[in-house]
């Protein structure tokens, strides 16, 4: 019998019966229903202690009393006042929403759940109602008539539930006539909850790990060496190539960093192996770092300050190792941080050089200040210059579609580079419907720290629009693989695809590149990086075996 934290617990036919009509009670009078499968467990005090965060305490979401600290209302109001004076986005987004509702059916959680408080507008109103009551003239005088409401413990519970039902994907902000960005609202909401010691453990434990050990999983340096060595072994088995493992290497030209999820989780590990192979093939002088062993930054899902604290290690390590520039792997939220925050938070990186490809000589002018280049920008340039011998036929058994990850799409705009790479390494590439890709892409449903199993119902609901689009290309074009350049996608979309479009696997783009590359000194390639036989190539081998067998020379080629 499946339990609520397993997909099998939920019947897809039931889950798509979505009640789109709002309840009869006004939203301010509709309390939160903490149903298992739709909320995330509280942050453990030990993790708050590691980070020195205020008010660590034991509590449970389903408790009536959340043991809020003394004077918590004032803490929240002071916290709001401080943020209103620091972030124009927050102040402006509190003031200017006209509640036109254009954002409503743009949110994957609203589409998948029908819960009106998952409409971006109403998610923001959860905060805005308090803002109006305590910070605006009309609200102070007219109270509820002006859309205000008092700050009660139920409001805090509601915030906790709904600000951890937003993946900060920014899709609503594309459609808003004023660009109101719910990611900003959610970030503020989570920061305010944090002031009361309220976090979810799925976010705050990785943050504590990352702070102490450099990566979210808490992999220690020797563990990282083991992990990479293990991958190098698999690489050798698949290709016959022995790759270098430069770790913490001073004086290397490039510091490479990527989300730590790709060190341990299938299918992310294949993408990680692909990096090593490709750097080997291209002869790049690079290094891994155990200190800066995670590009991902769950600080983005915690607070601006935490984001900065975790991100600081990247430039610091680049400086310590004396590299020239930084290359970042396939990741979603990591690139939001790297592209939109890192240079401001922890720059200037004037000790680095303007990134220049050692393979093609291309100067990456668009990264001349932050000195950090995306692996897809790098590989697109390499492929454009014909520096990578490719045989896309090796991926002919794959019919691939591409999932734009939210952050690189809407917080960066890296849309063509991955597509260019994909088209060069796969002969069968099919786009999902246009309202579900590029800047309109749908979230996997598990970003921003929501990808934990106790949140399974919301993940499946939030993943519905994406899963539906995948199923569409699966039925129409026979798509059997979904490429995504995001470690969270590679973890959560596996579940989403298995549930909504069974039969579609998830892969990183680099993995497909490595599988299509004809490496120097490779042995006869019969298996891909997953050590699965490559149809066609394995058959050829089987044919060869058959021929040899007739001659009585079985195994002679081995």
């Amino acid at each position: 019998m499946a339990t609520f934290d397993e997909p099998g617990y939920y019947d897809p036919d039931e889950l798509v019966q979505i009640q789109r009509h709002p309840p009869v009670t006004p939203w301010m009078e509709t309390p939160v229903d903490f149903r298992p499968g739709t909320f995330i467990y509280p942050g453990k005090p030990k993790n708050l202690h590691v980070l020195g965060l205020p008010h660590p305490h034991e509590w449970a979401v389903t408790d009536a009393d959340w043991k809020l600290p003394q004077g918590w209302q004032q803490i929240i109001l002071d916290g709001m006042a401080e943020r209103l004076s620091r972030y124009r986005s927050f102040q402006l987004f509190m003031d200017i929403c006209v509640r036109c509702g254009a954002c409503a059916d743009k949110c994957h959680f609203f589409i998948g759940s029908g819960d009106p408080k998952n409409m971006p507008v109403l998610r923001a109103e959860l905060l805005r109602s308090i803002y109006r009551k305590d910070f605006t003239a009309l609200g102070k005088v007219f109270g509820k008539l002006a859309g205000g409401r008092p700050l009660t413990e139920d409001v805090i519970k509601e915030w906790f539930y709904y600000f951890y039902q937003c993946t900060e994907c920014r899709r609503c902000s594309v459609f808003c006539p004023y660009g109101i960005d719910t990611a900003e609202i959610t970030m503020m909401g989570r920061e305010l909850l944090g002031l009361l010691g309220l976090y979810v453990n799925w976010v705050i434990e990785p943050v504590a790990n990352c702070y102490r050990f450099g990566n979210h999983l808490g992999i220690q340096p020797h563990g990282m060496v083991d992990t990479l060595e293990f991958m190098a072994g698999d690489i050798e088995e698949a290709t016959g190539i022995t790759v270098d493992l430069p770790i913490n290497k001073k004086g290397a030209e490039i510091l490479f960093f990527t989300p730590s999820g790709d060190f341990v989780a299938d299918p992310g590990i294949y993408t990680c192996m692909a990096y090593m192979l490709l750097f080997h093939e291209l002869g790049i002088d690079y290094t891994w770092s155990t200190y800066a062993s995670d590009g991902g930054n769950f600080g983005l899902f915690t607070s601006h300050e935490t984001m900065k604290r975790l991100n600081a290690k990247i430039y610091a390590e680049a400086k310590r190792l004396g590299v020239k520039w930084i290359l970042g792997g396939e990741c979603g939220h990591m690139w939001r941080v790297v592209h939109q925050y890192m240079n401001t938070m922890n720059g200037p990186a004037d000790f680095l050089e303007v990134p220049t490809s050692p393979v093609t000589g291309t100067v990456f002018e668009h990264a001349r200040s932050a000195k950090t280049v995306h692996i897809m920008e790098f590989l697109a340039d390499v492929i454009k210059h014909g520096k990578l011998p490719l045989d896309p036929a090796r991926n002919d058994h794959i019919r691939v579609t591409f999932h734009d990850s939210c952050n690189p799409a809407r917080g960066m705009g890296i849309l063509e580079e991955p597509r260019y790479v994909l088209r060069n390494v796969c002969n069968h590439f099919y786009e999902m419907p246009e309202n579900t890709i590029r800047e309109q892409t749908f979230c996997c449903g598990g970003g921003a720290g929501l990808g934990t199993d106790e949140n399974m119902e919301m993940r499946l609901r939030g993943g519905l629009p994406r899963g539906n689009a995948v199923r569409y290309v699966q039925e129409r074009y026979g798509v059997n693989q979904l490429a995504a350049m995001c470690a969270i996608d590679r973890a959560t979309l596996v579940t989403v695809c298995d549930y909504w479009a069974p039969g579609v696997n998830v892969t990183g783009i680099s993995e497909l590149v490595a599988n299509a590359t004809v490496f120097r000194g490779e042995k006869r390639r019969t298996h891909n990086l997953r050590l699965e036989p490559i149809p066609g190539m394995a058959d050829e081998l089987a044919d060869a075996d058959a021929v040899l067998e007739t001659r009585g020379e079985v195994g002679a080629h081995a």
Partner: protein
Amino acid sequence: MTMLIAVGLVTALFLVGMLGAAAGLQWVFGVALPYLAVGMFVIGLAARVLRWANVPVPFRIPTTCGQQRSLAWIRPQRLENPPDTPSVIGRMALEILGFRSLLRNTKTVMIDGRRLTYATDLALWAGAIVMHWAMLIALIRHLRLMTNPVPGFVTLVERFDGFFEVGMPVIYLTSVAFLGALAYLLYRRLAIPEVRYISLVGDYFPLFLLLAIGGSGFWLRHVTTTDIASVKALVLGLTHFAPTVPASISPLFFGHLFLVSVLLAYFPFSKLLHMPGVFLSPTRNLANTTRISRHVNPWDYPVKVHTYAEYEDELRDKMIGAGLPVEKD
């Protein structure tokens, strides 16, 4: 319920203006309150915009809606993902003049109980853009009552607006468009369950206020006309700071004027602030250049980080054991 409160408020305000003037308070509704309202509008608006201006933009967070500028051979979508200031101006112009983002609007519908579809849905865009442009043109037309002599462009706008010369006096296209678009916006607020669910008094009130202003204006021009030259004399008295109240103006006009005064005074305290606000939205008015040039956070402060030295101190033995180089032996 929220809607009825708004209807009641607007009706009451209109009657107050009309009956007040009829009862001999023309100076109050024709001079004192319009001055007060304009003052509240100007000061309130300036105060709010200055408040926004004084709040920093710590991070550069444009919502990118198209291809970035990266490699030389990949064409950037400059108006969707601006790589420089001219492109930002273009993006903002499209947003402010053409309501670009609403133009993307889709309607999500589940068909056959299993397939999600996203159909283009331009009704909201059409309603919004018609309402706003019609209001701007109507405002410009009203300059004929506020200026002396009337500038040529005002007459020109009037001529185009009354191009079809239907009715006596000519019915302006924008009068009809304004009222029609407002009626649609009200209709969708009531008819779409989700939008109705989120609507506050503050959402219905401006709609009914504008409907009442437009409606009373239409009535004054086409049904119960008043002595327009006296109206102009009243308005010019205000702009010359030499107020007069001519006797022959109908109370209906004072109802109309009072609602306009209410709108002006209410503006800086309401969602109508989206008008100046749209110019300042950080997700729209910033270029996507964080990697090209460093954006400075004015309130940046040092944070506690876990340094490499602390990291190595804790893990040195394990690093040495794994054959990794260390700074201190």
